[in-house]
C-alpha cells in the first residue's frame, strides 16, 4: 500500500509523521516536497544521486520567424523578433512548438531541473531536490515517483495546489496531518476537499495534541473522518526534530498507525 502524508498547512508535522512511520515500519520513503526536502536529515545511509531533466525547445538556425510556435505556446515562453527566442523558465514542456513548427526548426533539448537522490540505510529514502529558479516542481515529482513500488510512504509538499495533487494522485491512502489550531482546521477542510475529489481513502493524524482548540476533532467527528492517531504537544518532540532525530519513544504509536491503515 502507498500511503501519502499530506496537509493543507505547512509546518503541521508531515515530515515528522512520514519519516517515523516509514522508519518504524521498514517501508520505503519518498520525499516529494522537492522544493524543500527534509526527510534525508532523519534517514542516514549511503547516498547516490543523478540529475533530472525535462525537455525544452531550442531554436535552430533555419527558423524563419513565422510565429507559429509563439501562437501555439500558452505560457508566453516564446517570443519572435527576427526569429524565435525561448524563455525556458516559463516553458511547461508540452512539446507543441516543435510539433507545429513548419520548418522543423525547433529541437527539444534537456534542461536540468534538479537532482534525484537515493539514500540506502535502515530503510530506502528517495527524494528530489528542485534546482533554484525552476518554477514547477511537478516534473521532478513525477520523475521521483517513477521508482516507487507498491508499498511506500510518501511525504507530500504542503498546500492544496498542483504539487500536492501530483504527490497524492498515485497513492492508495492519504494521511492528513493537522494540528489543533483554527488555521490548520481551515486548511484541513481544503485538503479534505482535494482528496475527496480525487476519490482517495483518507484519515487524520492530530499533531501537537493537547493544545486547547478542539475544532479539528469536532470537525472530524461531525464529518465521519477517522482520527488515526494523536501525537502529543511536547517541547521534547520539537527539540528532537530540531536535532534531526527520530521519535523512538513513540515507536509503538507509529506501528499502530500503520497497522490501522494497511
Amino acid at each position: 500500500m502507498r500511503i501519502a502524508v499530506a496537509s493543507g498547512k505547512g509546518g503541521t508535522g508531515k515530515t515528522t509523521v512520514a519519516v517515523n512511520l516509514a522508519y518504524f515500519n521498514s517501508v520505503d520513503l519518498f520525499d516529494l516536497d522537492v522544493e524543500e526536502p527534509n526527510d534525508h536529515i532523519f534517514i542516514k545511509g549511503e547516498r547516490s544521486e543523478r540529475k533530472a531533466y525535462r525537455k525544452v525547445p531550442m531554436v535552430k538556425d533555419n527558423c524563419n520567424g513565422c510565429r507559429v510556435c509563439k501562437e501555439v505556446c500558452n505560457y508566453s515562453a516564446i517570443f519572435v523578433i527576427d526569429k524565435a527566442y525561448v524563455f525556458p523558465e516559463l516553458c511547461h514542456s508540452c512539446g507543441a512548438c516543435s510539433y507545429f513548427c513548419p520548418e522543423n526548426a525547433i529541437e527539444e533539448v534537456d534542461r536540468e531541473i534538479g537532482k534525484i537522490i537515493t539514500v540506502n540505510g535502515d530503510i530506502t529514502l528517495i527524494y528530489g531536490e528542485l534546482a533554484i529558479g525552476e518554477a514547477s516542481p511537478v516534473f521532478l515529482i513525477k520523475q521521483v515517483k517513477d521508482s516507487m513500488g507498491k508499498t511506500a510512504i510518501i511525504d507530500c509538499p504542503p498546500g492544496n495546489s498542483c504539487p500536492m495533487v501530483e504527490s497524492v494522485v498515485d497513492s492508495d491512502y492519504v494521511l492528513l496531518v493537522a494540528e489543533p489550531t483554527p488555521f490548520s482546521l481551515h486548511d484541513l477542510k481544503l485538503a479534505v476537499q482535494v482528496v475527496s475529489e480525487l476519490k482517495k481513502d483518507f484519515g487524520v493524524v492530530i499533531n501537537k495534541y493537547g493544545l486547547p482548540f478542539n475544532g479539528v476533532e469536532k470537525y472530524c467527528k461531525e464529518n465521519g473522518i477517522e482520527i488515526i492517531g494523536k501525537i502529543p504537544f511536547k517541547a521534547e518532540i520539537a527539540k528532537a526534530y530540531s536535532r534531526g532525530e527520530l521519535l523512538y519513544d513513540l515507536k509503538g504509536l507509529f506501528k499502530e498507525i500503520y497497522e490501522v491503515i494497511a
Partner: protein
Amino acid sequence: MDAPNLHILLQPEILKREEVYISRKAYIVRDKCSLCGLCYDLCRFNAIKINDGYEIDETRCEGCGFCFNACPEKAIEMREVKTGDLFISKTEFGYFVHALLKPGEENSGRLVAEVKNRAKDLAEENKAKLILIDAPAGIGCPVIASLSGVDFAIVVTEPTLSGLRDMVRVVELAKHFRVKPLVVINKFDLNEEISAKIEDYCKKNDIEFLGKIPFDEKLIEQFSALKFPFDCLASEKILECWDKAKSCIF
C-alpha cells in the same frame, strides 16, 4: 492562497469578492471526435483518458492547448475554468487582499500575481507606502510570483536542520531574483546551536539579520485563540525585528 490563513486572524470586513478565471482546460466534444487518438498520443501530461471514447482528466490537464491545436476534427475546445476567488477587504490595520485557490487547482502563481496587482492598485489609490505580502512556502512558482517586483524579503526560519537548509534555499532564490533578504529566527531557543549557525551564515554572507524570537507558549495560545494583536514576549521581539527591518527599508 492554496491554504490562506491570515484572514482568520485579521477577521476582515469583505468589501468585494470576485471569481477569478485564469485557467483553461481542454474539453472534447464527443459528437465531433472521430476517435483518431492523436490527442492521446501527443499529450505529455497523461490527461487524455479512454472511457468509451476519449475524454479529459481535468486534474491532469495543464491547459497547454496542444491537443486543441492538433485535433484534425476541431473536436477539442479550450474552456475557462475557475481558478479561485479573490477578496478585497478592510481591517482595522488597513486594506487587505487575499485569494482562495480552488482546491487542487493549478496556476497558483498567476493567482498570486493577481492578488499583488490588486494590492498595488489599492496602495496607489490610498497613497500607502508599504505592501506586506505573506508568501507561501517553498521555492516554486507561487513563491517566485510573490518575490517578483518586491524590494525586500523577510525570510523567517527556525533553528532546525530543516529550517537552516530551507532558509539557504530561499535566500539563494531571493538573490537570484535580485531581492534583498532579511533574516529572522523564530523559536530560536529550541536549538541555540543551530541558531548560532544561522546568524553566522548571515554574517559571512553579508545578509541583514533582524533578530531572534523565542519559543513562547503564550504566543501559541493567543494564536490559536485568535487573540490578535498578540501580547507576549514573542510579540515584543517581533516588533523589535520589525523596527530593525524598517531601518533597512526606509
